[in-house]
């Protein structure tokens, strides 16, 4: 039963990883930018929800109504004002810009909020669970996080496949110059892509902030796991990211069931094996962003 439990908990964890990684995957898929500020931006969103809860008494999920549009606006501004300029400077420039942004944001948060641990309080929802069988209980909150991850990825996938903006985005991603000849404004589209990515980061940040405590330095671990999920699944592939998240989550949970020392390690090993044997990831040519 403990194996079944490990796999079930691992799948739920994987859904959360996919939720966190969705924005990273989208930004890489559309612009080939690896956003190193992704983790800190999630922490920023969690602090946003915390402030709303602290001052207005908003439930973290209600706070999403404010945090998501604000982060989307931040994303659009970030892309138009900063990252689009960096894109002209070669492959490393955007990477360095997001790296610098991560350092600046982390220290700004430390100045503003101190090093205290915070948490978004969900009340009884945080600890509620559904007993399945003896020795197997599924937490309501992890289930909600996993379902949200699937919904977010499906929604982005539908957006890219079915809307005019989504198609334009894919066209720009395939060949920006040709798309521009068709009258598509790449700068604006990139802005929209980052806006969507940061909207998903906002959702992910709130889930992460309710799941455990966070402080300004909390972005690093988040970033590493999200990054591994994207790479395992296939860079730029959204459904691949979901699969990558689940593979990573299950690897960690099953590894930990063998011996807790192997939990995080098993995830890293799977990441390395995939990178060595299938550098394009498990689902490189599925629904592409």
């Amino acid at each position, binding site marked *: 039963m403990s194996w079944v439990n490990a796999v079930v908990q691992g799948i739920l964890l994987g859904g959360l990883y996919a939720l966190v990684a969705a924005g990273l995957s989208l930004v890489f898929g559309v612009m080939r930018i690896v956003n*190193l500020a992704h983790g800190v931006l999630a922490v920023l969103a969690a602090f946003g929800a915390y402030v709303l809860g602290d001052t207005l008494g908003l439930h973290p999920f209600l706070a999403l109504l404010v945090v998501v549009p604000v982060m989307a606006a931040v994303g659009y501004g970030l892309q138009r004002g900063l990252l689009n300029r960096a894109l002209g400077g070669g492959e490393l420039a955007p*990477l360095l810009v997001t790296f610098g942004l991560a350092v600046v944001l982390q220290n700004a948060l430390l100045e503003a909020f101190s090093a205290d641990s915070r948490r978004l309080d969900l009340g009884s929802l945080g600890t509620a669970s559904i007993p399945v069988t003896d020795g197997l209980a599924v937490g309501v909150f992890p289930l909600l996080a996993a379902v949200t991850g699937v919904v977010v990825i499906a929604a982005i996938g539908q957006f890219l496949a079915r809307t005019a903006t989504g198609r334009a985005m894919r066209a720009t991603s395939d060949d920006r110059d040709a798309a521009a000849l068709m009258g598509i404004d790449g700068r604006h589209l990139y802005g929209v892509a980052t806006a969507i990515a940061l909207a998903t980061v906002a959702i992910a940040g709130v889930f992460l902030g309710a799941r455990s405590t966070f402080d300004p330095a909390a972005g690093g671990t988040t970033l590493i796991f999200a990054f591994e999920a994207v790479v395992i699944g296939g860079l730029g592939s959204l459904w691949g990211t979901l699969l990558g998240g689940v593979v990573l989550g299950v690897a960690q949970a099953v590894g930990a069931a063998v011996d807790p020392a192997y*939990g995080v390690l098993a995830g890293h090993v799977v990441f390395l094996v995939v990178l060595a044997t299938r*550098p394009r990831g498990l689902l490189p040519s599925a629904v592409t962003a």
Partner: protein
Amino acid sequence: MHRRTPSRPGPARTAVRAVAAAGAGLLTLSACGGGLGSADGDGGDGGDTLTIGYVTPQSGPLAAFGEADSFVVDQMTAYFADNPLEIGGTSYDVEIVVKDTQSDSVRAGEVTAELINDDGADLVLAASTPDTVNPVADQCEANGVPCITTAAPWQPYFFGRGGTEGSSFDWTYHFFWGLEDVEAVYQDMWSQVDTNRQAGALWPNDPDGNAWSADFPGVVGENGYSITDPGLYENGTQDYSAQISAFQAADDQILLGVPIPPDFATFWQQAQQQGYTPRIATVAKALLFPSAVEAIGDSADGLCTEVWWSPQHPFTSSLTGQSAQELADAYEEATGRQWTQPIGFVHALFEVAVAALTEAGSTDGQAVVDALSSLQVSTIAGDLDWTSGPVPNVAKTPLVGGQWRASDGGEHPFDLVVVSNSEAPEIPTAGTVEPLG
């Protein structure tokens, strides 16, 4: 993403290159914090100014340890401004130079070298975790500068730096409690609750977790406690179902551990989701700071931890004459925040520095360490005695046990109540352990 043009790098190669670059970025990300709040001075001009260097984590993951620093340093700066130090008949102005480690042990060593070589520090102080105090002490030992440290258990400080029964250190001195104290305090708290003497252990694969897992089972086994140790996990683990299943299978009514705060918060939420409810939980490190306890939420009510300093400790400062209560009150008034345990110990660092310098009667480094080697001083952290430590270079401080209790309408959401003083009867208790749930 379909990029099939042969003249361009294929997606696979782009991916690998981006991954490699991003990986390098990830590695350095943690090393690049900002130098927040470091008050760099330009001392070391000899004359009648004495320069005390203070190394502490003020940013990065350990920053909570450094939160009391600016209060204590400001207080000490004001104190020395009014009370120049009298050493061997000469009056010295004291300058305190603070350096931030950014929670990085390599940087801790580097800033210590800066203090010694650029700022001309006569004496170096450091606090908070072996990751901070060990590199600082090593740097001072290598440069022959007196160094006083605290807020790290003495075993990793002494044995972790290569100290042995036969060989000790010439320039570096430390005061804190050790593993033997926390083992005794935890067992005393366990004995106050009716349990089956089965304990589940949450030990991470870091210096603390390694030391605890090597030492605890044998010691508590003598008293009939048996420990379920599922194995050491990595800090940052996101799923604890393996540990929770193991604790449930063994019916562990006691939980103990030394996890970092976010990991404990994750574990504790999952334990409740999966129905694991111990009768008593004694947890180190994760429950040190009130902010971390508040962040856990309502379910933090009744969790136990070790207490090295509290306003109820019956000690007074040898410098300002304040009692522990008065010092904590001054902190809460100045910062608007709840007191934390490092306040008393950082204050005591400066007390020890002054006592050693006064005793030495000189600012000469050799005279200062000679004084330190046999120093006895009563501080706000307790009576320190370097002649009777477990090893040379180390003085022990008293340790008691406390339980976090939700305060209904109190000044702070949670109060730390001292519930065990078997190891330090002079510190009053305010209750006994109440079982969880």
